[in-house]
């Protein structure tokens, strides 16, 4: 048992063009993707737009054992259909079809606006509904999750800078948050590879108490109570007020605490991909690290049948109660009538994880580090919540706002406090309040800046993301499509396309395929060797 498993994060960024009120957000998102394509092309001379291969997308398969008919699905669930900007959307944007044409013109695109890219670091950058989304490449440990997640912030920052420098384009601002505070939320999803043999009922039972409470160690904080933020106050989580059910397939409506999408993007019989939609997007490295590190440990507990026997009476209500009390004193009711605070519940999971790690002999450095930091965070929050400001995102935000409110005598409903909440998540180092805090050494980091910057171009070496990323970097002219579990080549002189499946996430690593890339093969020979 350890924190090591195949994982990845998805971030939907909030998008705004301040000088164009009401601008079409799908169009702005497409500008971001196209601007990044232009940036990549300018820097490396690669073809950057790669079609997404939808062949293995099954968004309506439910982990509980059934498939929702397409006719019964909400249109937003049909994520296996390519996004297109419609003529209507372009017209709505004032007839301005320049989402991509000036930022990134590519003959291959045939005047099409680019809506999807697969990046050389193995990530996917695309337009998801009305937001630019960066899906990080598959990684095998929490520290690498942080590295490639933060690389995504640099990717979209580079895109936004490019737009700002392009004549005729309005500046586009991006926010790593999860709500507009007007009733709308967008996600920061996590993905964890699990063995299929683990029962989904056990996953649900083991996760609900953990998910209702992990926000205290890794929430991002939010000003305002209720989905539209009308109630004055500060709460622990960005997302808590947007969840309505315990278990379900949807991600945009009737949001469930445990999502049942059964789309493993890997060998179906062997794996499931747990798709977690309940987390907040974090700017802080330690918060991201603990969010995935503790969750990975809890999944190991569930797989071993050793999750704490806790059951909340009302998990959805508990999620909100915990979020609405930054003092962390609220005790939520268990099914057996006991009451526990969020910190008590977190500690119960921690104790079980530590005991299990000791028994199973998992003593690697990163697992020990996650366990120690988890304990330290709980202890600090118990004695003095504000003392956790250097590592826990919501506390850092809370403390800054409390100090600002004190200094200026402001209530939680003051517009300047609302602006601080928004601007906390501005990804620009010179404007984002998180970044201003970090620049003054007030938050702890785990990775040197150069290491995150390198992950913008370099894929992780120990998963199939290495194969995907290197293919795009080394054979940009020949890759015509890609997805999590395939890379599609067009080999000159051969009829048809060659689809190389990558259904084993731990194959395609540098150790396995690195020599093939170093051999300097032509594309035909390369594809033949890969397939042999």
């Amino acid at each position, binding site marked *: 048992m350890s924190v090591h498993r195949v994982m990845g994060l998805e971030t*939907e960024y*909030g998008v*705004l063009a*301040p000088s164009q*009120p*009401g601008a079409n*957000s*799908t169009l702005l998102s497409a500008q971001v993707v196209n601007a990044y394509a232009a940036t990549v092309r300018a820097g490396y001379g690669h073809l950057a737009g790669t079609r997404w291969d939808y062949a293995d997308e099954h968004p309506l398969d439910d982990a509980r054992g059934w498939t929702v008919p397409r006719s019964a699905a909400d249109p*937003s669930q049909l994520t296996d259909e390519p996004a297109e900007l419609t003529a209507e959307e372009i017209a709505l944007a004032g007839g301005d079809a320049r989402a991509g044409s000036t930022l990134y013109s590519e003959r291959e695109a045939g005047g099409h606006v680019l809506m999807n890219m697969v990046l050389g670091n193995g990530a996917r950058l695309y337009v*998801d*509904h*009305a*937001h630019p989304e960066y899906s990080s490449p598959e990684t095998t440990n929490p*520290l690498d999750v942080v590295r490639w997640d933060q690389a995504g912030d640099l990717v979209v920052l580079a895109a936004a800078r490019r737009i700002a420098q392009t004549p005729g384009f309005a500046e586009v601002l991006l*926010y790593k948050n999860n709500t*507009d*505070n*007007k009733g*709308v*939320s*967008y*996600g920061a*999803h996590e993905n964890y590879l699990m063995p299929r043999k683990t029962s989904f009922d056990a996953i649900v039972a083991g996760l609900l108490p953990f998910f209702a409470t992990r926000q205290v160690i890794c929430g991002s904080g939010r000003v305002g109570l209720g989905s539209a933020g009308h109630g004055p106050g500060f709460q622990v989580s960005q997302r808590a007020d947007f969840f309505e059910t315990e278990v379900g397939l949807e991600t*945009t409506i009737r949001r469930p605490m445990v999502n049942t999408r059964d789309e493993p993007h890997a060998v179906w019989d062997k794996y499931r991909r747990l798709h977690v*939609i309940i987390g907040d997007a974090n700017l802080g490295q330690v918060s991201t690290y603990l969010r995935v590190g503790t969750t990975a440990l809890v999944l190991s507990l569930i797989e071993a049948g050793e999750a704490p026997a806790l059951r909340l009476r009302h998990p959805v209500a508990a999620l909100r109660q915990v979020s609405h009390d930054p003092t962390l004193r609220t005790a939520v009711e268990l099914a057996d009538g006991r009451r526990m605070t969020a910190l008590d519940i977190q500690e119960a999971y921690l104790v079980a994880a530590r005991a299990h790690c000791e028994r199973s002999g998992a003593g690697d*450095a*990163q697992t*020990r*580090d996650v366990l*120690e930091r988890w304990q330290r965070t709980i202890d600090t929050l118990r004695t003095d919540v504000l003392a956790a400001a*250097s590592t826990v995102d919501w506390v850092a935000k809370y*403390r*800054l706002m409390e*100090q*600002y409110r004190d*200094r200026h005598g402001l209530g939680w409903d003051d*517009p*300047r406090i*609302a*602006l*601080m909440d928004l*601007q906390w998540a501005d990804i620009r*180092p*010179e*404007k984002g*309040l998180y*970044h*201003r*805090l970090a*620049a*003054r*050494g*007030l*938050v*702890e*980091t*785990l*990775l*040197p*800046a150069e290491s995150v910057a390198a992950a913008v171009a370099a894929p992780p070496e120990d998963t199939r993301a290495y194969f995907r990323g290197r293919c795009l970097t080394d054979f940009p002219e020949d890759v015509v499509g890609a997805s999590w579990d395939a890379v599609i080549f067009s080999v000159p002189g051969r009829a048809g396309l060659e689809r190389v499946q990558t259904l084993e996430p731990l194959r395609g690593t540098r150790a396995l395929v690195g020599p093939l890339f170093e051999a300097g093969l032509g594309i035909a020979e390369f594809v033949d060797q890969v397939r042999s």
Partner: protein
Amino acid sequence: MAQEQFKAQPAQGAQEEETEAAVSAGPSAAAQEQVQAVDDLLDEIDGVLERNAEEFVRGFVQKGGQ
């Protein structure tokens, strides 16, 4: 506005890459410096915040996401 002030620098207690489980400096010694640093940041914030807070926040309207 604050562009020239921004310089990437390692955070206090920046960790070794790969987890050496480096223990961050005890809070007591750093506490005073932290208070000062936060004070400095509060001084800076008014210059960093977007103009016309109410209107700016009102303009941030998103479409639903996942």
